C-alpha cells in the first residue's frame, strides 16, 4: 500500500478537439489547443517549478516561478498563463530562468518561518519542494526586517504585521504567518466551491488572506468545504487532524457515505488511523471537490457513543443486556421463528439501509424473501424518492435519473424544483454554480428563497415561489404555455414518443383551467413568471431539470414526477448531454438500495415480483419458492403492527422513528411488535423500541459499492478493522445462518457476482471491472459494455415515451383558523438526515439545533422575535424549538429541519401520503406557531422514555 499521489498539471485541461504540436526542452509534444505550456510540459513529464498554479483552478500568474523562455519571443513569460502555439520552442531551464527563480524564492523565504521540522506540512509542503527545486541555499536579506512571521521584533515590540492563528473552524487552522499570498485558496473558494468567502485584503506587502471582512473562518460565509485547505501549498491552511497525527503513509480510494452525490475520496491513513479524507480528482461524480460532511465529518466512526457489543432484552422497559454475537443471533432467530409459527409467515419483515452497500442491501432483501418467505421488505426510499421510481418508470421505463453530473457543464437552462442543492447536494451544487456563472439560465420552483435564487454572482432568472402542495398545478401550467404557444419539439415527440398520447395530453394541458392565470389563484405564483419560465425552458437551448424531495414528498408526488417527465419529453430535452430529468437522491446509496430489490413489489433490477420468469432466476439460484404477492411497505407495516398482524422487524441502518412522519404512529407500531431488531452504529431513536441491538460498521470498515444519484456504482474500501467485529453484510449473513440458511459469502465481491448473474442491468459489473474503470453507470451489460452516462439516447427504455395527464388534486392537509400556516421541512448543509452521524462531529458548530424559519410578517403577528422559543403544533402533535425570522420564507410558510431528536419535527408531520407509493407528505403540514416557555408534553415524555430505554447493564466478563 502506498500513498496515492495525484499529478498536479498546474492548469485545468483544455477541452478543445484541435491539437497543437510544440517543442519543450527539445521534445515534440502534442496537446489540445488552449492548453498552457505548464500543463503541456507536465503531460510530457517535465515539471516546471510553480507555487500559485494548481489544476483545480484557472491560471493566475502571480508567483513568477514558472517562467520559461520561448524562442523568438521577448522576456520570460509565465508558463501557466501562456497557451501553447504550433511550432514554438520552449525552454524550461536556462541560466536566466534559474537566476530569476532563485531570486523569487529567496524573497518568499525571507518572510516565512523556518520551523520546517516541527511544521504540520513537513513532508507535504510545496514551498519546501520549490526551495529545493530551484536550489535555494541562502537568504541574503536576513529575517529581521518587516515580516509577518514574528509576533514581536528583536527589541520586544509588537509586530503589527503579525496575526495569530485562527483556530475557529473545527477542522482546520489558518496560520497567516505561513501564507505566501498565492491566492490559491481564494480562487478555490470562488472557482471550485463558488462561495466567494475568501479574499485578499490589503495591498503589496500588507496583502493577507481574509475570510469575509477580516472575520475568523467560523464567523465568515465559509462553508468549510475544504477546497482552500486542499489548494494551500504551505501549512497556512491545515487540517487539525494532520496537525495532531502527522502525515499519512498510505491511502485507499473510497466513496463518501453521506449524500447521493457519491464523491470519491482518498482515505489517507497512518496504520489503521484515518488522518484525513481528500477528494479524489479522478472521482467522476465530484471531480476533486468535497463538502464539509464528506471531507471532515467522519469523526463519528470513533465516537464514544458507538455500540460495539450486541445487546438484547425481553421487553423495552428493561435495560439492555450485553451478550455475545452467538446469543444475540440465536435469540433473534428464535424470536422470528416463534412469531412466524404463531402469527403466520407474513407477520415479520425488514428494512434495508440506504446507508449500507449494495451488497448488504441485496443480502437483507434476500434474507427476507428467501429466509422469512415473504416480500415484506422496504427501504427509506419509501419516504423520499419512491414517486421517482413510479413516475419515471411509467413515462420513460426506468426509475432513475437520465444524466451524469458532468452533463451540467453542457446545460443552458436549469430548472430546479423542490431541491436545495447547495445545502443538500453541495458538491453538485458547486458544479451547478460554476455553470451558472458561465451564463446558464436558472429557474427555481420553491416556496423558499433557496440560496441559488440570489447568491454571489448568481441570480435566478425566474423564481416561482409556489404555495406548498401546488407543484402539479404549476408544472402542468408550464406545459400549458409550452403547448398553447407551440414551443414543443414536434420532431422529437413524433420520433420518440407515442403521438396519440401526446395529443391527448396536449389537449388536456391546453384546457383553460391549466393556464397560468388560473393557476396563479391556487399557487400564488404570478402568471407572467409561469409564462416566462416556460418559454425559457422550452427555447433556451439545452434544458435540464433537477428535482428533490420537494417534488416527491407530497400527496401528488408521483403526479409531479410524471408532469416533469412530460415537460422534458415535450421539449425534446432527453437523451443527450446537458438535458434530462435528474432526481437528486438523498442518501449515499438510496439509488442502490432501490436497484437491489428493496421494494416489496420488486426483485433486483426493478422487476415485478409477480413475474414468474424473474422469480425463477432467483428461485433456481436460491433453492426456494418465492412468494408472488407484493409485500408491505413501511407505512403498511406500521399499520399492520397496530392492527396486530405484523410482529417482528429487522431494521438495518435506518432510524424510522425519527425520519418517518407522524412519530406517534411510528412509535405505536413499533411498540406493538414483539421483536424489533435494530442494526446500527448508535442507539438511535428507533432502538428505544428495540429488543435486539446488533452493532453496525461504518463505511470505513467494509468493502462494497454505493450507487449514487447518477446511477454510478462506486467502490467502497475497507481501511480499518470493524470496531464491532463484523461488517454489516457479515452480520446479516450470521443472522441468515442462525435462521438455518446456508450462506457462505467470504467477500462482498461474491455478492456482486450474484447480483450481476441475476440482474441484466448489472450483468457486466464486477469488482475487477470497477477497479479498472474507477466506477461505472448502470445499465452495464453487453449492450452497454462501458455503462451508460446518459440514458434514453436512441429511444426510451420502455419503447415510446409515454405522456400521461396530470390533474392537480389539492392535498387534504389544509390550513384553517386553528392551523393557518404551512410547514415544510428540509435539511441543512452541515447536518445529514437524522443527524446520527453529523451530530457526533464538529459539524454541530454550525447547526446545534433545529430552528423554525418564519417570515417577519408572520413572526410579528405572533409577537415573536428572532431566537424566541416557539410552540409548533399541527393536528398530529406539537413540539418546541427556536424561531429564526427569515425573509427566505414566503409569508404563510414556515420551515424546519429534522436533524435533532430533541425537536422531533416529525411529531408534527401527518400520515398523508403519495397516492401511488405512500411516500409521506412531509412537505405540507398545516401548523400554528405561538410563543412558548418550555418543552411540549410529548418532548418531556419522549425524553423520559428515551432515557429509560437506553440504560445498559454492562456484564462483567466471566472469570
Amino acid at each position, binding site marked *: 500500500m502506498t500513498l496515492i499521489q495525484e499529478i498536479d498539471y498546474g492548469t485545468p485541461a483544455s477541452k478543445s478537439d484541435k491539437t497543437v504540436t510544440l517543442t519543450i526542452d527539445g521534445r515534440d509534444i502534442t496537446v489540445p489547443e488552449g492548453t498552457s505550456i505548464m500543463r503541456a510540459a507536465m503531460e510530457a513529464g517535465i515539471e516546471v517549478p510553480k507555487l500559485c498554479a494548481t489544476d483545480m483552478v484557472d491560471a493566475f500568474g502571480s508567483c513568477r516561478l514558472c517562467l520559461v523562455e520561448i524562442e523568438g519571443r521577448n522576456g520570460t513569460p509565465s508558463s501557466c498563463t501562456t497557451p501553447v502555439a504550433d511550432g514554438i520552442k520552449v525552454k524550461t531551464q536556462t541560466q536566466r530562468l534559474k537566476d530569476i527563480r532563485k531570486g523569487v524564492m529567496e524573497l518568499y523565504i525571507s518572510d516565512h518561518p523556518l520551523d520546517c521540522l516541527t511544521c504540520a506540512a513537513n513532508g507535504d509542503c510545496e514551498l519546501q519542494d520549490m526551495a529545493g527545486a530551484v536550489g535555494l541555499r541562502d537568504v541574503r536579506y536576513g529575517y529581521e526586517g518587516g515580516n509577518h512571521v514574528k509576533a514581536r521584533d528583536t527589541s520586544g515590540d509588537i509586530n503589527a504585521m503579525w496575526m495569530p492563528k485562527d483556530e475557529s473552524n473545527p477542522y482546520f487552522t489558518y496560520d497567516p504567518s505561513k501564507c505566501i499570498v498565492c491566492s490559491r485558496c481564494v480562487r478555490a473558494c470562488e472557482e471550485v466551491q463558488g462561495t466567494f468567502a475568501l479574499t485578499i485584503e490589503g495591498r503589496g506587502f500588507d496583502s493577507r488572506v481574509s475570510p469575509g471582512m477580516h472575520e475568523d473562518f467560523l464567523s465568515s460565509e465559509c462553508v468549510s468545504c475544504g477546497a482552500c485547505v486542499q489548494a494551500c501549498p504551505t501549512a497556512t491552511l491545515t487540517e487539525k487532524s494532520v496537525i495532531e497525527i502527522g502525515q499519512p503513509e498510505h491511502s485507499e480510494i473510497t466513496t463518501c457515505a453521506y449524500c447521493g452525490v457519491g464523491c470519491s475520496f482518498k482515505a489517507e491513513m497512518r496504520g489503521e488511523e484515518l488522518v484525513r479524507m481528500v477528494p479524489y480528482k479522478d472521482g467522476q461524480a465530484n471531480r476533486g471537490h468535497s463538502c464539509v460532511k464528506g471531507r471532515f465529518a467522519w469523526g463519528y466512526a470513533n465516537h464514544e457513543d458507538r455500540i460495539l457489543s450486541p445487546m438484547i432484552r425481553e421487553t423495552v422497559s428493561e435495560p439492555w443486556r450485553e451478550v455475545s454475537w452467538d446469543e444475540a443471533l440465536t435469540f433473534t432467530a428464535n424470536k422470528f421463528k416463534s412469531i412466524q409459527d404463531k402469527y403466520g409467515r407474513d407477520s415479520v419483515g425488514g428494512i434495508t439501509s440506504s446507508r449500507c452497500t449494495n451488497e448488504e442491501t441485496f443480502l437483507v432483501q434476500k434474507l427476507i424473501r428467501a429466509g422469512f418467505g415473504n416480500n415484506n421488505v422496504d427501504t427509506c426510499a419509501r419516504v423520499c424518492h419512491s414517486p421517482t421510481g413510479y413516475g419515471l418508470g411509467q413515462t420513460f421505463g426506468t426509475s432513475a435519473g437520465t444524466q451524469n453530473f458532468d452533463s451540467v457543464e453542457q446545460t443552458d437552462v436549469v430548472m430546479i424544483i423542490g431541491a436545495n442543492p447547495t445545502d443538500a447536494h453541495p458538491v453538485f451544487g458547486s458544479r451547478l454554480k460554476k455553470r451558472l456563472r458561465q451564463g446558464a439560465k436558472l429557474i427555481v420552483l420553491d416556496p423558499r428563497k433557496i440560496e441559488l435564487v440570489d447568491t454571489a454572482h448568481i441570480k435566478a432568472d425566474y423564481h416561482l415561489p409556489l404555495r406548498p402542495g401546488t407543484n402539479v398545478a404549476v408544472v402542468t401550467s408550464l406545459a400549458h404555455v409550452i403547448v398553447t404557444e407551440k414551443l414543443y419539439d414536434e420532431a422529437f415527440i413524433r420520433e420518440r414518443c407515442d403521438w396519440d398520447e401526446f395529443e391527448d395530453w396536449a389537449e388536456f394541458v391546453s384546457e383553460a383551467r391549466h393556464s397560468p392565470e388560473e393557476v396563479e389563484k391556487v399557487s400564488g405564483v404570478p402568471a407572467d413568471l409561469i409564462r416566462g419560465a416556460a418559454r425559457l425552458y422550452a427555447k433556451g437551448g439545452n434544458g435540464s431539470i433537477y428535482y428533490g424531495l420537494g417534488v416527491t414528498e407530497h400527496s401528488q408526488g408521483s403526479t409531479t414526477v410524471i408532469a416533469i417527465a412530460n415537460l422534458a419529453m415535450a421539449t425534446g430535452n432527453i437523451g443527450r448531454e446537458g438535458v434530462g430529468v435528474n432526481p437528486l437522491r438523498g442518501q449515499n446509496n438510496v439509488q442502490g438500495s432501490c436497484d437491489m430489490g428493496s421494494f416489496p413489489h420488486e426483485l433486483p433490477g426493478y422487476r415485478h415480483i409477480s413475474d414468474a420468469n424473474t422469480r425463477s432466476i432467483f428461485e433456481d439460484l436460491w433453492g426456494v419458492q418465492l412468494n408472488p*404477492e407484493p409485500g408491505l411497505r413501511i407505512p*403498511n407495516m406500521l399499520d399492520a403492527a397496530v392492527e396486530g398482524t405484523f410482529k417482528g422487524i429487522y431494521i438495518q441502518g435506518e432510524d424510522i422513528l425519527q425520519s418517518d412522519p407522524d412519530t406517534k404512529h411510528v412509535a405505536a407500531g413499533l411498540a406493538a411488535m414483539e421483536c424489533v431488531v435494530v442494526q446500527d452504529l448508535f442507539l438511535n431513536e428507533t432502538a428505544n423500541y428495540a429488543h435486539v441491538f446488533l452493532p453496525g460498521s461504518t463505511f470505513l470498515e467494509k468493502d462494497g459499492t454505493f450507487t449514487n444519484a447518477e446511477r454510478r456504482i462506486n467502490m467502497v474500501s475497507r481501511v480499518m478493522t470493524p470496531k464491532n467485529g463484523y461488517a454489516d453484510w457479515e452480520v446479516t449473513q450470521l443472522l441468515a445462518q442462525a435462521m438455518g440458511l446456508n450462506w457462505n459469502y467470504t467477500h462482498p465481491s461474491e455478492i456482486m457476482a450474484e447480483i450481476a448473474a441475476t440482474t441484466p442491468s448489472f450483468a457486466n459489473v464486477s469488482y475487477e471491472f470497477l477497479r479498472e474503470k474507477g466506477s461505472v453507470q448502470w445499465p452495464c451489460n453487453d449492450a452497454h459494455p462501458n455503462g451508460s452516462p446518459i440514458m434514453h439516447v436512441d429511444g426510451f427504455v420502455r419503447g415510446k415515451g409515454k405522456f400521461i395527464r396530470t*390533474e392537480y388534486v389539492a392535498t387534504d392537509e389544509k390550513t384553517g383558523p386553528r392551523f393557518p400556516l404551512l410547514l415544510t421541512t428540509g435539511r441543512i448543509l452541515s447536518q445529514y438526515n437524522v443527524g446520527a452521524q453529523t451530530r457526533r462531529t464538529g459539524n454541530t458548530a454550525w447547526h446545534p439545533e433545529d430552528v423554525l424559519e418564519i417570515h417577519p410578517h408572520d413572526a410579528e403577528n405572533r409577537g415573536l422575535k428572532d431566537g424566541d422559543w416557539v410552540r409548533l403544533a399541527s*393536528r398530529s402533535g406539537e413540539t418546541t424549538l427556536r424561531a429564526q425570522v427569515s425573509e427566505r420564507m414566503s409569508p404563510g410558510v414556515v420551515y424546519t429541519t429534522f436533524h435533532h431528536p430533541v425537536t422531533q419535527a416529525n411529531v408534527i408531520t401527518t*400520515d398523508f401520503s403519495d397516492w401511488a407509493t*405512500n411516500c409521506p407528505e412531509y412537505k405540507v403540514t398545516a401548523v400554528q406557531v405561538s410563543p412558548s416557555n418550555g418543552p411540549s408534553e410529548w418532548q418531556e415524555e419522549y425524553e423520559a422514555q428515551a432515557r429509560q430505554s437506553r440504560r445498559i447493564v454492562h456484564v462483567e466478563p466471566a472469570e
Partner: protein
Amino acid sequence: MSHDKIVYMANQIAAFFNSQPEAQRAEGVATHINKFWEPRMRRQFFEKLEAGAAFDPLVVKAAELVNRPETA
C-alpha cells in the same frame, strides 16, 4: 388521523385515474392495487367494499379487476 386508510388510499388512486382517458380508468386503479397492495390490504379492501364503505365509484367499478387474495 381518523380517516380510514384503506378507503382513503383507494380513493386517492381513483382521483388520479379519474383524470385519465375513460378506457384506462378502472383497469388503471385495479392494476395499481394488484401491483402494490399486499394481500392483507386487499383482503381489508374487499371487506370494506362489502361493508359498503365510502369508496369512489371508480374504485367500486375497478374492484372486479382486483385480485382476491387467498383467505388467510
